[in-house]
């Protein structure tokens, strides 16, 4: 019975080594008994097709072997929804806008160039590389949690009163207001040149004259954003007046961002790089790279965060509750 031996060998391949012999002996006995029963029923030896039919009924070797194995998974059912959520969050919040904006900017930047297609395809490599790294890191973290049962204590001791508390959509968490305030204080200190980024020896990076033209409006906007964060820290409930105020500040900030993007779109630079040892082509390349990087970041910031914040503030100004959606909350930072 050559086919039966080959079948059993194929099943054996997928079985754990310590159980191979035992399982195969038992399975072999069962299949041989089936063949014998069929033969005595028909009164003749089975032909190839009839043996094949019996083996087909038993199932594909890998599937048969798999039934003897304990259920195995890298991330269990208790953790999987959270893992999937974090993975989607990464894709949606980082790569979604990034991909749209980078494709848009790259294609815009290559207008008039001879190799628009090459520019568009060349940028996918870093995208897929970072996508893979993100997937690997998140999966690795969750596998580690699963393996060490780090979530077991949480699942055992979860408290419905703590985890399911009612959240007022108009309440601003103090932690978020304080971190926002800290960010705007640092930004203001950097803008007035009190806080300096460590310099590269021999190279000086300063704002371009076109940016300096908006020095005071930008400072006022940063201080206004800081003031809102400060108000939120002390009185953590949105009211229509404060929502209108932030809507105006965000709207003006958006105009500033649009002005920066216009500079970039016209081929101008947002920074002026100088260095005694740098050639004019190095300087132009550095200015272009920094301007490009800023443009991407500012566009993401303006398009996503300001739009989401303005949407929520418009609802608050109209005395309507803000939309409670995790994506909006994430972008708005509330």
């Amino acid at each position, binding site marked *: 019975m050559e086919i039966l031996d080959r079948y059993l060998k194929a099943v054996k391949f997928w079985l754990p080594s310590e159980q191979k012999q035992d*399982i195969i*002996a*038992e*399975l072999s*006995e*069962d*299949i*041989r*008994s*089936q063949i014998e029963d069929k033969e005595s029923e028909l009164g003749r030896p089975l032909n190839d097709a009839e043996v094949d039919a019996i083996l087909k*009924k*038993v*199932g594909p070797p890998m*599937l*048969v072997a798999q*039934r*003897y194995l304990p259920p195995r998974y890298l991330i269990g059912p208790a953790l999987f929804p959270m893992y999937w959520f974090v993975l989607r969050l990464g894709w949606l919040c980082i790569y979604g806008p990034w991909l749209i904006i980078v494709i848009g900017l790259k294609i815009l930047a290559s207008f008039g160039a001879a190799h628009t297609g090459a520019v568009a395809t060349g940028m996918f490599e870093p995208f897929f590389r970072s996508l893979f790294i993100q997937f690997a890191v998140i999966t690795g973290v969750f596998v580690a949690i699963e393996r060490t049962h780090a979530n077991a204590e949480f699942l055992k001791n979860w408290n419905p009163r703590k985890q399911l508390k009612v959240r007022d959509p108009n309440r601003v968490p103090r932690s978020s207001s304080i971190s926002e305030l800290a960010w705007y204080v640092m930004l203001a200190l950097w803008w007035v040149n009190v806080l300096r980024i460590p310099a590269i020896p021999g190279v000086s990076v300063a704002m371009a004259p076109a940016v300096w033209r908006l020095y005071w409006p930008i400072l006022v906007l940063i201080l206004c954003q800081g003031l809102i964060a400060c108000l939120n820290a002390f009185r953590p409930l949105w009211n229509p007046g404060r929502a209108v105020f932030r809507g105006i500040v965000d709207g003006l900030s958006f105009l500033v961002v649009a002005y920066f993007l216009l500079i970039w779109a016209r081929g101008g630079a947002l920074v002026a790089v100088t260095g005694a040892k740098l050639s004019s082509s190095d300087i132009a390349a550095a200015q272009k790279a920094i301007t490009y990087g800023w443009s991407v970041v500012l566009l993401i910031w303006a398009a996503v965060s300001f739009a989401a914040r303005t949407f929520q503030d418009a609802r608050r100004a109209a005395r309507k509750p803000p939309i409670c959606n995790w994506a909006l909350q994430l972008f708005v930072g509330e």
Partner: protein
Amino acid sequence: MAQGNANPNSNENGALLENLRLELRRGCLVLAVLAELRNEQYGYTLRKGLAERGLEVDEGTLYPLLRRLESQGLLASEWREEEKRNKRFYKISRDGKLVLKQLLAEWQGIGLALDEVLKESGHGNS
């Protein structure tokens, strides 16, 4: 009267019914196997015996189940030669008998409760 989406003749519905049927039988299978193995048997005769009583079960389900029940201490097994072939004979253990008794009580409780539910919803026999 509003019509449901389920079409009893569709393949999709057939697969769904098959899945539900398997799910329903899976729970009963442990009980049937423990009860059958009050008399020592080897895998193939056990499978045939269950099939003759209307509880067909394939090798891929029965043998892993027998191994699991043995590892849980509910069954005992030994390899023996019979009709010139080595066969693995299974028999219920002392712990298995205790568990079977408790499972039977549970099964009867479920049966009574289900009868009540079906009777109230008009699906009962009486």
